[in-house]
């Protein structure tokens, strides 16, 4: 598995993938990761695995799309899989998520729980994946609380906690009380700022992303998380390879229906039961197709 520049301890995306992979270790299965320091590392890192005859090479993240395509074309007999991007090649399995659906539920929670009617969104880079978080979240908020305003900030980076902290500080100063971040390790700064404020006696919240981030940052700042089961997806495709059922050349889209996205059970600590009941309603409506959540390509 090759991480993007966020690194394996980014407390979200790459880490989740690695935890999934680690669960499969043992019984003759070996797993290993290589961390990428810059764009230039993606190709050599993938090639390291290919040349060591690994049965499956994971590229974690949208950013690696072009490079994975290059390596996959040069090594038609190796198998590859990528998260969050669609690579059109026979030996590549692509996995994407319907982030907009999960973010819609996070938006419902935020819309019902905000006291100031001001909500923030901190995005990493302005790419389709993050846009899906953004649009879904906005739709969720508007569905339950049309008066709420959403301030958005795309920091332009997934690996810059300082930018996340600055963005969060600006928003909280402007009266925002809940921030949803979809920005990888940049979001660590959002949590950091929220913690400082909570310590100073103010009540502010962060909605985490990718993993159940309350486990990492505590329940006093984490309202809930838009969990993206990157780990499940990694396990799914890797198991296919182990069992010899690897398809390749196809794209799996995991949404609420497939349990690929959603809110974690720990949400009930901070979110009242009646709100969670509403969230469940919306979830059913989205799955049945009654509500169409806007998305981005």
């Amino acid at each position, binding site marked *: 598995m090759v991480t993007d520049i966020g*690194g394996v301890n980014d407390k979200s995306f790459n880490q989740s993938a690695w935890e999934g992979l680690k669960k499969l270790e043992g019984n003759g299965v070996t797993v*290993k990761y*290589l*961390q990428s*320091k*810059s*764009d*230039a*590392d993606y*190709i*050599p*890192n993938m*090639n*390291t695995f290919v*040349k*060591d005859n690994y049965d499956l090479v994971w590229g974690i993240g949208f*950013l690696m799309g*072009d490079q994975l395509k290059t390596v996959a074309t*040069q090594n038609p007999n190796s198998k590859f899989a990528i998260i969050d991007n669609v690579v059109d090649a026979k030996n590549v399995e692509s996995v994407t998520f319907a982030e907009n659906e999960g973010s819609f539920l996070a938006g419902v929670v935020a819309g019902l729980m905000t006291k100031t009617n001001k909500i923030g969104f901190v995005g990493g*880079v*302005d*790419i*389709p994946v993050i846009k899906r978080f953004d649009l879904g979240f906005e739709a969720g908020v508007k569905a339950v609380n049309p008066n709420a305003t959403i301030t958005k900030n795309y*920091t*332009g*980076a*997934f*690996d*810059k906690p300082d*930018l996340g902290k600055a963005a969060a500080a600006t928003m909280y100063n402007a009266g925002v009380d809940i921030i949803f971040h979809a920005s990888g390790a940049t979001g660590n700064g959002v949590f950091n700022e929220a913690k400082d404020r909570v310590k100073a006696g103010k009540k502010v919240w962060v909605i985490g992303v990718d993993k159940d981030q309350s486990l990492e940052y505590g329940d006093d700042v984490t309202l809930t998380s838009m969990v993206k089961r990157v780990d499940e997806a990694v396990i799914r495709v890797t198991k296919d390879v182990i069992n010899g059922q690897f398809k390749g050349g196809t794209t799996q889209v995991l949404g609420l229906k497939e349990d690929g996205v959603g809110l974690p059970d720990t949400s009930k600590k901070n979110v009242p039961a009646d709100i969670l009941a509403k969230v469940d309603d919306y979830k059913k409506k989205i799955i049945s197709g009654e509500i169409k959540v806007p998305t981005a*390509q």
Partner: protein
Amino acid sequence: MGKLLRWIGSDSFVVSLVAILLGLICGAIIMLIGGYNPIVAYIALFQKIFGSPYDIGETIREITPLILTGLSVAFAFRTGLFNIGAEGQFLIGMTGATFVGVKLSGLPWIVHAPLAVIVGALAGGLWGALAGWLKASRGVNEVITTIMLNWIGLFLSNYIVASFLLQPGQQRSYMIQDTASMSLPWLAAAFGNARLHWGTVVALLAAVVFYIILWRTKLGYELRAVGHNPHAAQYAGMNVNRRMVTAMFTAGIFAGLAGVFEVLGVFHYQTVMAASPGYGFDGIAVSLLGMNNPFGVVLGAALFGGLTYGSAGMSFGADVPPEIIRIVIGSVIFFVATQGIVRYVLLPFYKRRGKEVAKA
């Protein structure tokens, strides 16, 4: 060549080797504390650098921009200027090449590729000259201006890529036209698809040009004179201000070329960057390692680039986490660089002693 051999036999080369060894030992101790086997790790490191044609090729790819940014810093240093702006010049050169590479089409390779190289190199050169001009005309310290210009360069590059060259739905520019490519596909094929490109040849030529300009021309004599003592140079009738601009312009060309070949040779596109890639800053360390000597810079870049690329091997082959690897690399660089720093710090003392001896 004889000069090169003498230099290898010289005291400074031996000192460098000892410093590298000390660094490796220090790194080994850190790995032992962390519970990792340093011998396995170092074997993995060297295997990663020399293990296969692919790895050798990729190591060369990693070294190439470091040679050029190292030369950039060293060249300015010879004229008494501290060019911290190689990073910005790198980015502006890169952007110039991307612009020409993406926007122009229908030209034959023999025109298009060299044109992209020249435009990028000149853009980097002018970016450097800007700092030189500010120093010469207004006396603004080049350390300040080059650092600031790094940021201006980063965001200007991002702006240009994001508004004129962006491929929709991506965080990067369109691919450059094939006619602008400076890759060497046939050589890459021989090296297992490692991304080899003309930049390596240009970088080595640049080291030779560096030597010829500084030690074989009147211009170089003046540049070095300004570096040794600007007042004496002025007194001798040299145009110090103009030489400062020349030096920064040339330094900018070197750094710009590094950026040019990253686009034309390696990536074939430019991303919208959250932070600069760091080749310019590494160039400062490389120039220090090479003691501002063009051939020393090539060796310094080889060491720096080799360690950077080989570090992935330590992670893969010996399971050493990336954080510890950075400490190991840091300690090697530290030991090699400190002797440079020590010499640099001692320099004024030597001079003073020289003066006292002269007085007596």
